[in-house]
C-alpha cells in the first residue's frame, strides 16, 4: 500500500511540473491589460508617481552570479512596501512604497547563470563542453567569492565579445527565456493593481561594444494579453537599430506600445550620444527620427553614478560633478579608459545640446529626450534611499560591512571603490492616475523627471504669458491650459519664454537649497552653448550672489552621527522666470535642476552604523547635495516642426 502511495504522490508532483506554466486562469481583465478605463482619473496630472525602471533579480545573468537569490515576486513585494528578507539575511523594507516598477533583467542569458549553477557538472563538461564555462561553474560552486570572480570575468568577456556561445547565442537560450518570460508576465499581472501599484513588463538589452555601455531598458505599456506574443530581444553584438525594429514589429503585430530607455551614458565612452550613426557615417534624418520615437526618455542617474554633466563639459557650473568620481575613468569593465573628448557623447546635457545641433542639420532632433533616475540594483531590492542602501549587488549588501572602502572592480583592473556607488535614483512621472497606460504615456510625452533618491515634487510649465500673479490662482490649470509642462515644446513667438517653476521638498526629507534653470542653445554661429541660472533659492535676502556664485546654503551634517537638521534651506521654492538672454529664432532647451541642502550619503550612515572611519576622498565625499533634473522644455524656431 505504502509503495503505491509514494508512486502516486511522486507522479502527481511530476506531471504538475509539466503542466506548470500554462499561465493564469482567472485574472481581472483590468490587470492583464494596459489599465485604461479602470480607475477614475484626475483632470490634470495630480502628483508625481514614483518608480524604478531598472531593477535586476535572480534571473539576470550577473545578478545571480553576484549571489542574489531573490526573484521577481520578492522584487514586486518589496517595491509595494512589504518586508522581504534580503539574500544575505537582513530584513528589508522601503520607508515608503513605490508606485511602479519595471523588472529589467538582462535579456541575454536570461536565467542562464541560474541554470548553469543548477546543472550537473557532467552536463557542463560534456554537453556544453567549454573550458571557460566549466571553470566559471566550478568557481560559482566554490562560494560567494568564487562566484563573484566568475561573474566579473563573465562581464568582462561580454564586454570584450568573447562570451562562450552557450551564453551569447539567444537562440540557444530560448527555452529558458521563454519559461521565465511567460511566468513573469503572468506574475506582473497578478501584482498590477490599477490605482495602487503598476507592474510593467520589461527587460534590459545589453548592447556593449568593446565594453562601452549602451544598454537599454525596454518597457511595455501592455499586459500579458499582448506581451505573451513575444520574447525579450537579445544579442549583445547587434546594432541598436535592430532593437528598434523589434519594437516596431511588436507594436505593429499586437497594437501595443513599447519604448526603450538608454542606460546612464556615463559608462559609454562617448558612444551613447554620438554625432554620427553607430558605424561612423553621417547621421541620417531617418535614423534620428527612429531614435527619437523609440527612446523618448534617458536614465541620467543611478547606482553607477550620475550622468547629467561633467565638470569638464560645464566648467562654469559650480554644481556639476555629482556622482562623477570613479565612473569618469572609463567604460563599464574599465577595459578602455575615458578621455575628455569622449565626455560629450556620454553625458545628458551635452547630448541635449548635440540634439539641437543635429536638428539644425537634419530637421529632426535624435536627442530630444526626457530624464529619469533609477536604481540598476542587482539585489531585487529597488532601494534608492541613502539610509537604506542595499548595495549594487549581493556582494555589497549591508552584510558586507567593509563595502564602502573596498575596491569594486569588474574584471581585474584597479580604479573604482565602494564609495563611488550612489544609493540610486528614482523616476517620477506626472500622471493622472496610477495605471500602466497613464504612467507609460507620461514617459512617452516626457512628463517625467529624475531624482537621485529623494522624492521632491518638481513642476515646470513654459509659456509666453505667465506672470507672478498666476501663483495666486489655480496655477496648475494655468500651466496646462496656457503653456506646456516638462517634456513639452514651445514654438518661438518672438518674445522670451516664461516659466512657472515649483519645487516642493520631499515631505520626509531634506529642505531645498536652490532651483536652477539649465539652458542650452545653438548660437548664431552654430556653436553649442549652455548656461545655468540660479532662479530661486532659500533665504534669498540673506544669500546674495557674489562673483564666486551664490552664497552657499550651509551644512548642518554631523559627521559623527550621520544626522542633519532642516534649520537651513526652504520647504518649497517657487518662481516665475523669464529667459533674460532670449534671442529670436534661437533653438533652445530649458530644464530645471533642484538642489537639496547637504545630507549624509550612504557611506556616512555605514561608517556610523558599523563603527569605522572613512578616510581621504571617501570622507570628503560622504556628504552631498542630492538633486532632481526635470525633462526639458524645448523652444523651437517657427516652422521647425515637431520632433
Amino acid at each position, binding site marked *: 500500500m505504502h509503495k503505491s*502511495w509514494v508512486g502516486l504522490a511522486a507522479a502527481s508532483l511530476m506531471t504538475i511540473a509539466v*503542466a506548470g506554466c*500554462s499561465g493564469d*486562469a482567472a485574472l481581472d481583465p483590468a490587470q492583464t491589460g494596459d489599465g485604461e478605463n479602470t480607475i477614475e482619473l484626475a483632470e490634470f496630472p495630480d*502628483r508625481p508617481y514614483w518608480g524604478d525602471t531598472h531593477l535586476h533579480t535572480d534571473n539576470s545573468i550577473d545578478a545571480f552570479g553576484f549571489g542574489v537569490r531573490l526573484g521577481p515576486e520578492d522584487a514586486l513585494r518589496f517595491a509595494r512596501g512589504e518586508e522581504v528578507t534580503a539574500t544575505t539575511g537582513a530584513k528589508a523594507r522601503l520607508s515608503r512604497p513605490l508606485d511602479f516598477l519595471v523588472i529589467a533583467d538582462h535579456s541575454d542569458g536570461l536565467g542562464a547563470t541560474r541554470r548553469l549553477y543548477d546543472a550537473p557538472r557532467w552536463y557542463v563538461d560534456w*554537453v556544453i563542453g567549454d573550458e571557460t564555462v566549466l571553470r566559471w561553474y566550478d568557481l560559482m560552486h566554490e562560494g560567494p567569492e568564487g562566484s563573484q570572480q566568475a561573474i566579473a570575468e563573465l562581464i568582462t568577456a561580454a564586454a570584450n565579445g568573447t562570451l562562450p556561445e552557450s551564453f551569447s547565442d539567444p537562440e*540557444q537560450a*530560448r527555452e529558458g527565456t521563454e519559461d521565465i518570460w511567460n511566468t513573469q508576465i503572468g506574475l506582473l499581472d497578478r501584482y498590477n493593481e490599477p490605482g495602487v501599484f503598476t507592474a510593467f513588463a520589461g527587460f534590459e538589452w545589453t548592447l556593449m561594444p568593446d565594453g562601452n555601455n549602451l544598454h537599454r531598458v525596454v518597457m511595455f505599456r501592455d499586459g500579458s494579453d499582448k506581451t505573451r506574443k513575444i520574447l525579450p530581444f537579445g544579442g549583445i553584438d547587434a546594432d541598436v537599430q535592430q532593437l528598434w525594429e523589434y519594437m516596431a514589429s511588436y507594436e505593429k503585430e499586437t497594437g501595443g506600445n513599447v519604448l526603450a530607455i538608454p542606460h546612464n551614458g556615463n559608462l559609454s565612452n562617448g558612444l551613447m550620444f554620438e554625432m554620427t550613426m553607430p558605424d561612423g557615417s553621417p547621421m541620417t534624418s531617418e535614423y534620428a527620427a527612429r531614435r527619437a520615437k523609440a527612446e523618448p526618455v534617458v536614465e541620467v542617474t543611478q547606482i553607477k553614478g550620475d550622468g547629467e554633466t561633467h565638470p569638464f563639459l560645464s566648467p562654469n557650473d559650480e554644481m556639476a560633478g555629482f556622482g562623477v568620481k570613479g565612473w569618469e575613468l572609463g567604460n563599464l569593465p574599465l577595459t578602455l579608459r575615458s578621455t575628455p573628448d569622449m565626455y560629450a557623447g556620454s553625458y545628458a546635457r551635452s547630448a541635449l545640446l548635440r540634439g539641437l545641433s543635429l536638428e539644425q542639420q537634419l530637421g529632426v532632433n535624435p536627442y530630444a529626450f526626457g530624464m529619469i533616475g533609477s536604481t540598476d540594483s542587482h539585489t531585487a531590492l529597488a532601494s534608492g534611499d541613502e539610509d537604506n542602501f542595499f548595495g549594487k549587488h549581493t556582494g555589497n549588501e549591508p552584510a558586507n560591512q567593509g563595502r564602502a572602502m573596498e575596491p569594486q572592480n569588474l574584471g581585474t583592473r584597479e580604479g573604482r571603490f565602494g564609495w563611488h556607488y550612489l544609493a540610486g535614483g528614482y523616476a517620477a512621472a506626472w500622471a493622472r492616475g496610477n495605471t500602466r497606460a497613464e504612467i507609460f504615456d507620461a514617459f512617452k510625452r516626457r512628463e517625467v523627471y529624475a531624482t537621485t533618491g529623494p522624492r521632491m515634487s518638481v513642476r515646470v510649465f513654459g509659456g509666453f504669458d505667465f506672470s507672478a500673479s498666476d501663483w495666486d490662482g489655480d496655477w496648475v490649470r494655468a500651466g496646462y491650459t496656457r503653456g506646456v509642462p516638462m517634456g513639452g515644446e514651445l514654438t518661438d513667438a518672438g518674445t522670451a519664454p516664461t516659466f512657472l517653476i515649483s519645487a516642493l521638498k520631499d*515631505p520626509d526629507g531634506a529642505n531645498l537649497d536652490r532651483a536652477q534653470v539649465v539652458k542650452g542653445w545653438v548660437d548664431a554661429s552654430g556653436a553649442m552653448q549652455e548656461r545655468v541660472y540660479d532662479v530661486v533659492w532659500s533665504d534669498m535676502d540673506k544669500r546674495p550672489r557674489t562673483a564666486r556664485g551664490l552664497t552657499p546654503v550651509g551644512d548642518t551634517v554631523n559627521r559623527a552621527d550621520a544626522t542633519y537638521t532642516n534649520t537651513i534651506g526652504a520647504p518649497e521654492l517657487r518662481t516665475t522666470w523669464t529667459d533674460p538672454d532670449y534671442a529670436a529664432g534661437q533653438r533652445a532647451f530649458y530644464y530645471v535642476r533642484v538642489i537639496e541642502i547637504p545630507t549624509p550619503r550612504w557611506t556616512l550612515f555605514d561608517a556610523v552604523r558599523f563603527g569605522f572611519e572613512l578616510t581621504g576622498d571617501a570622507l570628503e565625499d560622504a556628504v552631498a547635495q542630492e538633486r532632481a533634473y526635470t525633462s526639458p522644455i524645448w523652444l523651437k524656431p517657427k516652422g521647425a516642426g515637431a520632433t
Partner: protein
Amino acid sequence: MKLPDWAREPLVHFIGLGALVYLALTWGGMPVDPASRMIRVDADQKAQLALGFERVMGRAPTDAELDARIERYVREEVLYREALRLGLDQGDAVVRQRLVAKMDMSASAAAEVADPDEAELRAFFEENASRYADALLVSFEQAYFSSEAAARNAMSRANGGEETGEPISLPRRVENERFAEIQIRFGEQFARGLAALDQGAQWQGPVPSGFGWHLVRLQSRKPVAADFDTVRDRVENDWRNAQIEQRKQRAYEILRSAYRVDIAR
C-alpha cells in the same frame, strides 16, 4: 478500503502512468532500453524547433539554421542519454540538489496555476483580516504656516471659518483619500499628527510636518471595513504564496510517511 482525499484527485490519476514510466527510466540506475538508441526527429519535432527559433529571431529559420538547430538537439540528446547510461547522475551533489529543488518546485508549480475558488479566497481573507484592514479614508482641510509662531497665532484667532495660511503646493482640501496616500503626499510626521486629531468642524493644531505647521479641520475619518473585492488580488497573491509553502510541506509529508528513518543515537 477508504482512500485518502488526495488520492481521489483526478489529476493524480491522470498523471500516474506517465510519471511511473519516468520514474522507471530514471530511478535506480536501470539500464537504458536499447530501443532508446533511436532518436526520432519527426515533423512535429522539427516544427517545434523552427517555432522556437522564430519566436526569438522574429523570422523563420533558413534550412541551414534549422539543420544546425536539429544537429544541436541530437547532440544534446545523445550525450544526455549516454550520461544516464553511465550513471553520471549518481552521487553528484548538484544533481541531487537539483532534483530536490525540482520536486519542491513541482509542488509550487501546482499552486502557481491553481485557480482558487471564491469561497477559499474569502476564507483566507477572513483568517488574515488584519493584513488587509489598513484602509482608512480621510477628508480634511489644511492651512499651512512656515513658522510655528505664525501657526499658533492663527490658531488663537481661528474660528470655524475660512483659514488660508501661506502658499504651498499641497492640496488645501482632501476628500475621501486613502490614508496611505496622505503619508506619501504630506509625509510621516503629518500623518501621525492627523491620526491624533478629533473629527469636527473646528480648526485644530498646529500639526507639524516636514514642511512646517498646519491647522487642520478633520471632516471625516472613515475606517473602511476591509472589502474583499478591493483587495482580492492581494489576497490571491498571498493565498498563492501560502499554498506553495503548504504544498511543499504536504508533498514532503506524503513521501516521508513511506520511509522509516533510523538515526543512530
